[in-house]
Structures are given as C-alpha cells and as structure tokens.
C-alpha cells in the first residue's frame, strides 16, 4: 500500500511539472509565432519597398510605348478590380512566388521578346517582390503622354514557424505604390541645341553636324533673337553652312519652341527647374572620373576638363571643356556655359549636344553667352537610340509613395 501512495505522489508531482512545462512551452511558442508574424509583416513591407526601387531603376531605360501594353503589345483592359496590382491581395495570401505567372503581361517589364518577364524579384526566406506598371489615373489607361507611371509592388513573404506544417501556406503580404516620372527633359530636339543670350562661334569647314530626322542646329527662344543672329552670321563667315544637315536639307537651322510634340522643352526655360537640377546633380553623378566604362553613366564636370577617350551616357559640364584625340561621346553632352566648348582632332558626339549659357537665380534663367569652337573634322550626329540610352542614366523622379491596404479601393 505504501508503494501505491508513493506512486500517486510521484504521478501528481510529475503531472504538475508537466502542466507547468507545457504552459511555459505554449507561451513561448505563441510568443515566437507572434514575433515571426510581426517580422514577416515587416519583411513583406521591405520586400514591397524593394520592388518599387527595382521598378524605379528599370523605368528610365524602359520604352514607354511598350510598357503599358506589355510584351504582346495588346492592352487587356481595366475590367478586373485589382488590375493595377501584380496579383490580387487574396491570391497573394496563398501564392508561392516561385510559381507566379502574371494573369496579364500589361505593365510587366521585359527586356527582350525572348526573355521572361521581369516583374519579380526574389528575396531571402522565400520572399519576393512582384511589381506592375500602369498609367497614372489622369490619363487613359493605355496611352501615356506625361511619362508619369504608377508602379505597384507586392511584397510576399511566406509565414514561417509551426504554420508551415499545415497543408496550406498563408503569406505575409504588403502592397506599396509609387508614382514615378520618367525624365526626358534633355531629349535633344536637334543635333546641336542652343540656349543663351548671345553666341560666340568658331566653325571649321571640315565640321559635320547631322540631325537626320531633326534639325542640325536648334535654338531655344531666349530674351532676344541675338543668339540666332550670331549663329547665322558665324556660319556665313565660316562657309560651313552646308555642313549643317538635318530634316533632309542643309543648312538646317531651326527655332525650337515648346509644342505638343516636344512639351518637355518648356521645363528648360524655367529657373526653378535648373536650380533644382544643378543643386542635386553632384549627388547623382560621378564627379571627375571619365575613364572608359562600358556602362552608360551620368557624369558631371563642374570645372570643365579634357576628354580624349570614349564616354557613354550623359555628361554635364561647365567651364572650358575640350573633346579631342578621337574622343567619342556616345550619348548626350550638356555644356552649361561659363567657358568654351572645344571640339577638335576628330572628336565625335553621337546622340545630341546641348550648349546652354545659363546662371539661374530664383527669379530668372540668367541667360549668358554660349561659346563653341570647332577645329578640324569634328562631328555632331543626332542618334535617337544613343540619346535614349543616355537618358536612361537619369533616375526616375519619385512623385508619391504610399502603402495600400486591402480595405482600400484598389
């Protein structure tokens, strides 16, 4: 009988201990699950945010005419409730990102006809960012003029922990939207575009300026017509007029005014635009190195310099700048005055050239003299593809960023 009492006592104590241990364990598991849930939600938000940044990096090089309709070139319409989202919220909750196939290719970026769609970026822990572009609501869904796009990024992170043992997956999901603008203000309207008060030009008879489908030389409207007059006079004196070709004739000179076809030109006549651009340019550009790099890039030479090698991308300079020794600028060169732009020794600009004499203040553009000197067989050739590649170095502008929730009108 005493052995029985001992057994009962031991069992009682063992049961109590077991219950206590189980309650502590259950509490720890609950806490762990909650922590994982919170971390999963944060992870999903960060993944969504990453998707926006990836889309932002993609937009400058994207072809706007192909972006909205997708690879098949056919816009599927706006009939579904969440047509702007890469996937619906409900689907994202149970989606395995590895198996995602977009229901429509509208707004899904792609790099070529052959390659797969690029609207997904995988992150750690099985998570992913899915994103889709769409047009801003101020315009028709399939027609873009203002280069403003909506991009929505869905961050999906599978729930981890005990829930994994269940026969279904429930993801942590976050949806972020950004309104981005593709920047085309420096898309050249001519092979050589001038903006200034007056001009000082030295042309070589061996010069070639070829605008192809656009004017050879274009002049933006300034305070007076003095710049255009100086240009015409200098060309007459040099005998290089016939070397200025464009739009099927020579000499090809044109006054450029903002219009429906080139609305972005108007921005360049605003001191606010230039003040903002010049104050932020050092943060976005490579300041001095002009060594050969295959990838197009944005470079800024605030004090001018000498370029005698190849450069791809968009080069901004102020002060005396020399292009010589067969130097090639494959892209866009913007010279902001404060010195002379000299092209010599078979230098080539393939894309477009802006020469602007400006010193903007809060109230005025501060137009100054533009100075160009061309010696020997230098060439300026308009190339739309090179110019677009160069514009791809300009980051898309963030206009708005917000988090979307399922209960909102999506």
């Amino acid at each position, binding site marked *: 009988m005493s052995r029985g009492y001992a057994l009962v*006592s031991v069992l009682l*104590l063992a049961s*109590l201990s077991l219950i*206590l241990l189980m*309650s*502590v364990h259950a*509490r720890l598991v609950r*806490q762990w699950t*909650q*922590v994982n849930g*919170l971390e999963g*939600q*944060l992870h999903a*938000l960060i993944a969504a*945010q990453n998707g*926006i940044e990836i889309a932002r990096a993609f937009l400058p090089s994207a072809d706007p005419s192909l972006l909205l309709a997708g690879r098949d070139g056919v816009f599927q319409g706006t009939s579904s409730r969440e047509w702007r989202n890469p996937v619906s919220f409900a689907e994202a909750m149970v989606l395995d990102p590895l198996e995602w196939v977009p229901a429509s290719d509208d707004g899904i970026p792609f790099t070529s006809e052959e390659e797969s769609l690029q609207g997904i970026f995988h992150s750690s822990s099985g998570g992913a960012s899915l994103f889709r572009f769409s047009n801003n*609501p101020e315009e028709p869904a399939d027609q873009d003029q203002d280069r403003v796009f909506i991009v929505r990024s869905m961050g999906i992170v599978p729930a981890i922990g005990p829930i994994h043992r269940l026969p279904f997956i429930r993801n942590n999901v976050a949806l972020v939207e*950004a309104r981005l*603008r593709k*920047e085309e*203000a420096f898309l050249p309207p001519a092979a050589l575009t001038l903006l200034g008060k007056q001009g000082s030009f030295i042309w070589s008879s061996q010069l070639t300026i070829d605008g192809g489908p656009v004017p050879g030389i274009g002049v933006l409207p300034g305070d007076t017509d003095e710049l255009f007059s100086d240009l015409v006079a200098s060309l007459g004196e040099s005998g290089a007029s016939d070397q200025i070709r464009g739009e099927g004739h020579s000499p090809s000179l044109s006054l450029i005014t903002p219009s429906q076809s080139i609305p972005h030109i*108007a*921005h360049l006549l*605003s001191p*606010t*635009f230039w003040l*903002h*651009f010049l104050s*932020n*340019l050092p*943060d*976005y550009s490579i300041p001095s190195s002009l060594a050969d790099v295959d990838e197009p890039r944005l470079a800024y030479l605030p004090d001018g310099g000498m370029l005698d090698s190849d450069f791809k991308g968009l080069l901004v300079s102020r002060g005396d700048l020399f292009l010589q020794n067969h130097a090639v600028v494959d892209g866009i060169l913007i010279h902001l005055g404060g010195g002379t732009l000299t092209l010599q020794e078979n230098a080539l600009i393939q894309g477009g050239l802006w020469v602007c004499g400006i010193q903007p203040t809060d109230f005025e553009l501060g137009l100054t003299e533009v100075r160009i000197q061309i010696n020997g067989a230098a060439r300026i050739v308009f190339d739309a593809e090179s110019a677009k590649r160069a514009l791809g170095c*300009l*980051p898309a*502008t*963030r*206009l*708005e*960023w*917000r*988090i979307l929730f399922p209960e*909102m*009108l*999506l």
Partner: protein
Amino acid sequence: MDDSRLSGKIRAPERSLPLDQSDTRLERRKSYQLTSPQSNPSGFDCSHSQPSRGTREALVPEGRKKAGYTLIELLLALLLTTVLITAAFSALQSVQIWSQNLDQLVGRDENLRTAPILLVRWIAHAGANRHSQRWPGISLGTGTLQVQSDFDGEAGFPNGKLTESFENLSIRLMKNELQVRSGSGNFQPFLKQITAFDARLESPSLLLIELNSTTSTTLAGIKENRAAAVALRTWLPNYASNLFPEKLP
C-alpha cells in the same frame, strides 16, 4: 529429507536457473524446514501454506502480536510528508514567480516588437501627395508626432484632402501609454508601458523614433533592469531627394 525428495514435492519453476542460484534456494528451504521438524511429520513441505497457530506464535516476536503503526512511525511519516509537500510547493512557487516574471518581460518585449510594424505602416507614407499641398507632413513636438499623408480618396487615389482615416495622425505619450488619434477623434492607447517616446528627423527623409518600455511591476527575485529600449529608423520616401523637381514648371 534429502534433496531428491524436495525437488520431487515442490515444483521448481520451468525456467532453468544457473546452478549457483538453484543451490542457494535449496539451502534457504532446507534451513526453514530445519527450524520446525515436528510440524511436518508426514514429510511434505508446507512452507507456502498457512502455518499452524503454534508455529505462528513461535515465529512472531512477542512485541508485535498486534498489527499497526507506532506513534513514532506516524510522526515520522507526517514530518516527511510535510517536508515533501513544503518542498514541492516551494518549487511550484518558484516556477510561478518565474512564470510571472516571464509574463512581465514578454509583455514588455511585445510592446517593443509591435511598435515598429505599427509605426512604420502609419508613418512611412508621410507626405504623400505633398507637392500640391501646403501641410507639413511631419510635425515634431515634445513627446508628440503628427503625420499627415494624403494617401487615399474617393477614387482610390489621393484627393488633396486629409479627411480619410489615418491621413492625419497624432501620436503622443500620455501616462505611460502611447496613444494615437486619427483626424479630430479622441486619442486611443495602442501601446502600454511605454515610459519614453522621442522622434526626430535625422535627415529630411529619415525619421528616428526611440521608445523605452518597462515591466508593469517589479520583477520578483530579479535585480536586472526592468527597462528596455528600441530605436527605429523609418525611411520617408516622399521626402527623398530627386534629381529633377517633383512639380515641373
């Protein structure tokens, strides 16, 4: 009585025992029978049956003729039981204290872990649609933070007004509670046991939030610091710089 008779009358177990163990058992039985040679004149071994009265009296000592426990045995048993129960309850009390401490610490840490996801979701889109508006987006005061973001509207897009839920938020610390108010409503607590709340802009697009939390009561048996802190940096994409102006002329 020889060994062969013994083995013939008492059924040995079927299993075979090692020789030395079998011998030992036989020795024991022999010695028992030798103590009462007259009780079994027939020669049968009755060691497993009820002994006769005379035999039992001969075997039981005089002082134990009545069954039961002595007082000392009871006292000892009582004492032992008391000691065991006291030890068990002491152990249980310790576990209970640890459990309460754990609850306190879990509660404190839950606050600090919940804070980032709540605050980031409310604050990250501060300044949405600010470029065509005049409101400041982020306003900092002593122990208060006001967040304005036009992120919703009737058509699902910002409408230039701060009338939707959570578009005009105020967060403040009051009586160890972090409270939030949407629009012109009342402040509601969303995190308790917060002892300090500080927010400041490290750059136009980076908001630093520091929170201190503590347990609701003193931790029993533990001298460690009850307070814990968390620092959270929230990126504000609507205030990130751009190469080109957001609002084109």
